[in-house]
C-alpha cells in the first residue's frame, strides 16, 4: 500500500488503495469515500448472504467497523474491494453462526427466526404468486415469483454454500476471487457451488424444468445504480464452468 503524502488528504477520485493508505495515515475522510464507493454492492452481498435485511445491516456494519479498524492489516495481496467483501462476508457469516449457536435449533427454526427478523426470503413472506397489478406485465410477475422461490430455496442452504453461490452465481465473481473473499481454496468454492446448485436444482425442480429461456433479461451481473468500477476487467455474466 503506498503511503500518501503526510498531511495531504487524497481526493475523492483517488483509487481504492490510495484511499485506504490515506485512511491508515490518518485522513479522516478517506475511509468514508472508499466505503461509500462499494457500499451498495456490499449491501447486496450481505443481504443475499444473510437472507434478511436486519442481519444484513448488522453484518455490513460489523464489517465496516472491522475494516475501519483493521485497515492497517491490509497487505495489498488482493484488490481493496476483495478485501472489503471478505471482511463483510465474514462478519455476516459470523452473525449467522452466532445465531445458530444461540438458537441451537435445526434449520427450519432458523428460518422461522429469520422471518421474525424481517426476512425477505420466506415463501410465506413473499407470496408464491405475486399479485398481478393492473399495469404490470405478466412477465414481471413471473420474474418476481421466481425470485421469491429462488431466495426461499437459497435460504435453505448452509451459510457457506449460500455465500459461495451469492458471490459466484449472483454477483458474477470469478471462482478464484470468491475464494479470496471467502478465504478458502478454489476447489472448496467449486465444491460449495456444485453442492449448492444441486440442492437448488432439487428445490426448484419445476422452475429449472421451465427456466429456459428467461422471460426477462436476468439481473445478474448488471451494475447497480451508483456502483463503482471494479479494479479488474468488467465481469461478464455467469457462465457454466467447463
Amino acid at each position, binding site marked *: 500500500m503506498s503511503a500518501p503524502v503526510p498531511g495531504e488528504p487524497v481526493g475523492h477520485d483517488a483509487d481504492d488503495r490510495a484511499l485506504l493508505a490515506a485512511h491508515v495515515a490518518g485522513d479522516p475522510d478517506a475511509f468514508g469515500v472508499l466505503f461509500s464507493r462499494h457500499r451498495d454492492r456490499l449491501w447486496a452481498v450481505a443481504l443475499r448472504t444473510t437472507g434478511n435485511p436486519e442481519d444484513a*445491516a448488522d453484518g455490513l456494519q*460489523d464489517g465496516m467497523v472491522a475494516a475501519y479498524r483493521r485497515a492497517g492489516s491490509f497487505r495489498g495481496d488482493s484488490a481493496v474491494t476483495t478485501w472489503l467483501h471478505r471482511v463483510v462476508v465474514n462478519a455476516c457469516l459470523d452473525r449467522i453462526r452466532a445465531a445458530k449457536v444461540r438458537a441451537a435449533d435445526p434449520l427450519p427454526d432458523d428460518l422461522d427466526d429469520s*422471518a421474525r427478523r424481517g426476512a425477505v426470503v420466506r415463501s410465506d413472506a413473499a407470496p408464491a404468486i405475486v399479485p398481478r397489478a393492473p399495469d404490470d406485465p405478466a412477465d414481471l410477475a413471473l420474474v418476481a415469483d421466481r425470485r421469491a422461490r429462488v431466495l426461499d430455496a437459497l435460504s435453505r442452504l448452509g451459510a457457506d454454500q449460500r455465500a459461495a453461490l451469492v458471490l459466484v452465481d449472483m454477483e458474477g465473481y470469478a471462482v478464484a476471487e470468491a475464494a479470496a473473499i471467502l478465504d478458502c481454496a478454489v476447489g472448496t468454492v467449486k465444491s460449495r457451488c456444485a453442492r449448492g446448485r444441486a440442492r437448488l436444482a432439487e428445490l426448484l425442480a419445476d422452475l429449472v424444468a421451465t427456466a429456459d429461456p428467461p422471460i426477462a433479461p436476468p439481473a445478474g451481473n448488471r451494475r447497480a445504480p451508483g456502483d463503482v468500477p471494479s479494479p479488474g476487467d468488467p465481469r461478464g455474466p455467469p457462465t457454466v464452468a467447463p
Partner: protein
Amino acid sequence: MPPETPDESGPDPVLDPATAAAVRRLLAEARHDEPAPPAVAARLDATLAGLRAERLAAHPSAPATEHGLPPRPGADAPIDLAARRRRRRGGVLLAAAAAVVVVGVGGVLVPRLGGSGDATSSDSGGQSESGPNVGQAPPPDGNAEEQPPSSAPVQPNQTPDDRVVDAAADLATYEGLLLDADGRGLSSSSFDADLAAVLAAVAADPRPATSTGCGAEPADGTVGVLTELDGATVVVEVTPSAGSADVRVLDCEGEPLLEAQYGAD
C-alpha cells in the same frame, strides 16, 4: 492459500450442463440490484462518524508518526482495554498482547437495527453505548423479538466489579464447560458493565453452547462463555477464585484479546 479441501465428504454432485445453467440463471435473476436502503446508509454514516470522532478523541495531541499522525489504535498496536482499570487500581490488570479492541475515549456509537446483540446494552443500561436505533423497523408480524431472560437482580451498592466476582463465583460449578450467553454481547465502550450483566445472566440461566463454530475452548479450571465483543464472536474465559475473578477474552482462534482481574484489591 488454505489447503484444497472439499466442502463436505463424498464426491461433488454433477449436474447436467443444462440444469446447472438453469440454476445459475435463476440465481443471477435473483441478484439484489437496489442500493442500500436510506435507513441502512444513515446508520452506517452515523457509525462512521462515531469511529472518526473516536479516532480524533483518542489522539488529539499525540506525537506524530512517519505519516504525520499518531499511531492508529486498532491496526497494529493493541488497544489496552485493561489500562483504564490498571490506572484505577494501580496495576492490577494485564494488557492483552494482541488486542484489536478499541476502547472509546470518545466512545463509538454503534447503532443497531435491533439484532440480538442489542440485549446486552439494554440489560446493562448501556443504551448510550449502543447508540440510536437508526432506521429501526418493527418486525413484520408486529411481534417484538423474543428477549433473553432477565439477568440476576442487581444490588444497588454493587459495582460492576463486584457483580463480576459474584457471577464468577456462581459459575464456578461449571468449570471446563462452554456456556452460551444467549444473545448477550459485550461492548468495549462499556465492557465492565456488560461483562457483569452477561456473567450474571449466564449464571442465572446456564446453557451449554452446543455448537460454537468458534475454535476457542475454555482452559482447565475455567468457565467459558460464548458471546460477542463489538459484534465479533469471542469466548470469555472466567477463572473464579476466592473474592476475585480473572477474565480473559479470546478470539475464535484462541488468541487473547484482553485480560483483566476483578476484585483483587
